[in-house]
């Protein structure tokens, strides 16, 4: 398959996860990946991976061009999926700032979103494998709680009164944070159908203020995800 890897505004961590493919990278034809190659060609890409969020007109144009050239466009990680940590500067407290950061889907149609800050390299592998055999990759579409239960972790919210975003966060990481004895901070972004109202009720009962809960969601690296946006108007 012909691949292109592109970076917009981000920390650069997700694209290097592609190197985790190791030797099997050699089976791919990488035509565009400026961070590892000096030979970069615009071509019709079977798969284009785009890391980072859109923060200026140049990036917007670049993204539109990638979309034109890509048969299958993958948003790689929390910046591309939600606008990243840089997008939280829309929150009330920081309104004085002129800074914008948008997810890719605000401008183009995205064929697949790989969640996480950073993405999980197994998910990149799964994507390439599925596409190469003409199939569609499948990733968990259930909340992180399911993974925690499978691992047999006691619930941190119930047993330790530690706030955990797992209940509103999409699974896929394997419940990493709760397994390390800390609450999930939401880097895989909100799960479809997340019940924010119930989550707020629960967190309020733990003694947090509504403003504090909103701030914790903003800090999730996915604070500007479509599902969370209604929180900004409050």
């Amino acid at each position, binding site marked *: 398959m012909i691949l292109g890897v592109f*970076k917009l*505004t*981000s*920390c*650069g*961590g*997700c694209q*290097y*996860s592609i*190197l*985790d493919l*190791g*030797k099997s*990278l*050699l089976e791919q034809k*990488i035509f565009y*990946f*400026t*961070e*590892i*190659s*000096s*030979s*970069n060609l615009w071509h019709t890409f079977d798969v284009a991976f785009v890391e980072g969020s*859109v*923060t*200026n*007109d140049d*990036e*917007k144009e670049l993204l539109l061009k990638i979309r034109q050239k890509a048969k299958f466009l993958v948003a790689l990680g929390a910046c591309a999926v939600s606008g*990243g*940590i*840089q997008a*939280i*500067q829309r929150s009330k*407290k*920081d309104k004085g*700032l*002129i*800074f*914008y*950061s*948008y997810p890719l889907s605000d401008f183009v149609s995205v064929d697949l979103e790989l969640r996480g*800050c*950073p993405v*999980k390299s197994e998910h990149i592998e799964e994507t390439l494998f599925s596409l190469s055999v003409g199939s569609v990759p499948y990733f968990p579409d259930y909340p992180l709680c399911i993974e925690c239960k499978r691992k047999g972790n006691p619930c941190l919210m119930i047993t330790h009164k530690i706030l955990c975003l797992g209940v509103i966060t999409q699974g896929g*990481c394997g419940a*990493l*944070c709760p*397994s*390390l*004895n*800390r609450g999930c*901070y939401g*880097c895989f972004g909100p799960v479809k159908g997340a019940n924010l109202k119930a989550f707020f009720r629960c967190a309020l009962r733990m003694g947090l203020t509504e403003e504090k809960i909103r*701030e914790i969601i903003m*800090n999730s*690296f996915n604070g500007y995800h479509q599902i969370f946006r209604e929180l900004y108007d409050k």
Partner: protein
Amino acid sequence: MTNKIDFLTRVSGLANLEIIAEDNLLKEVRFSVRETPRLIEKLLLGRSYKVIPEITARICGICPVAYQLTALQAIEDAFGIKPTKEDLSLRKLIYLAEWIYSHTLHLFFVHLPDYYKVNSFLELFQIERELLEKAFFLRETACRIIEKLGGRAIHPLSLIPGGFSSYPDSLSPLIDPLRNSLKIAEELFTKLCSMTFPEFSLSEVQFVSLLDEDDYPILDGIIYDGKRKIDKRSFRDYFLEVERPYSTANHSLTKEGKPYVVGPMARFEHAFEKLSPRAKELATKHGIIPPVDNPFLSPLIRMLEIVHSVELALEIAKGYIKPKKVPQELKPSEGEGIGITEAPRGILWHHYKFDSQGLITHVNIVTPTSQNLASIELALFKSLSKEKGLEEASIRNRAETMIRNFDPCLPCATHFLEISIKKLD
């Protein structure tokens, strides 16, 4: 005449190069970083100290552990807590793993293709398959160490103020891969020593690194510029940040207004004697001893630091016993804290002030790459002055190769600027 090279390749992040010449005589070289500033410092203001390690980690996806550990040192400094010996030893282990990860990534997958005159490591695979397979093994080992301690290789999760949120039961699965890695790293160093490197001298710049009484510097230490020893609290008195209108990254200079270099070359210069036994032995055997002021030799020094890191990591892993303790209770109080460590690319300095609730009232982060940018421009100027034609095709390669000697990380260098950005419609 201005010659502009858009999209420098095989550097971490986005940058251009502008070459300004008059009558074919080089006047100025501008290394202009094009990364959008993400204003990470600004967005920390008013937030709790608790989010600092997670949020500052996102300044860089190649060296997040450096940001987390430097931030933790600053937080612990502010609130007066001391991590235990066991915790410091484990922090050192995860930091050494990041050095291996970052150096391997840069040296073999970004930099080495230059020395074979190929476009990428993918092409290099056709020539040096075995060598790159070894490099993949080193990278893999480093990832497994960070995963074992922190849950995942990039942006790990267990590093918290006062210690670790959780400890692995055992590190014994790391011992065999580390033993193999040590052998591999030694072989790779020997292999690299057989290559030829261009001659070049950058003797006019100062090297600045940390000094640690007992160790090759990594987790802590006093700043040393070759003449003076400087406490981390006086960093700002000796080093200045200046804006460059053509770049979204600041440049750092000494207070005398001179460029300086941080990173592997500076550490090697000041702490050669404290390298691990195997690293020192190998270096001496191959005549790689200070002073080394040729940036083209930086791959050898990075490789030596990989040998050193693997050897030390192996020792720590062998001696690991799971600590019984739980993280120390931390009470926020009004105050300020400073953290300084040696990131893979050099000195990383964090400064925070907190109110009585532990909310951040001031933040300033100085990154290794911003400290090196002025020296990169100087090295480019010196290197390109020797070129006859100043056309893109002829200088692109030479300029990029020089830049890669310094392993710049541009998202790091760009995190802090306070500028207004064009609004998107």
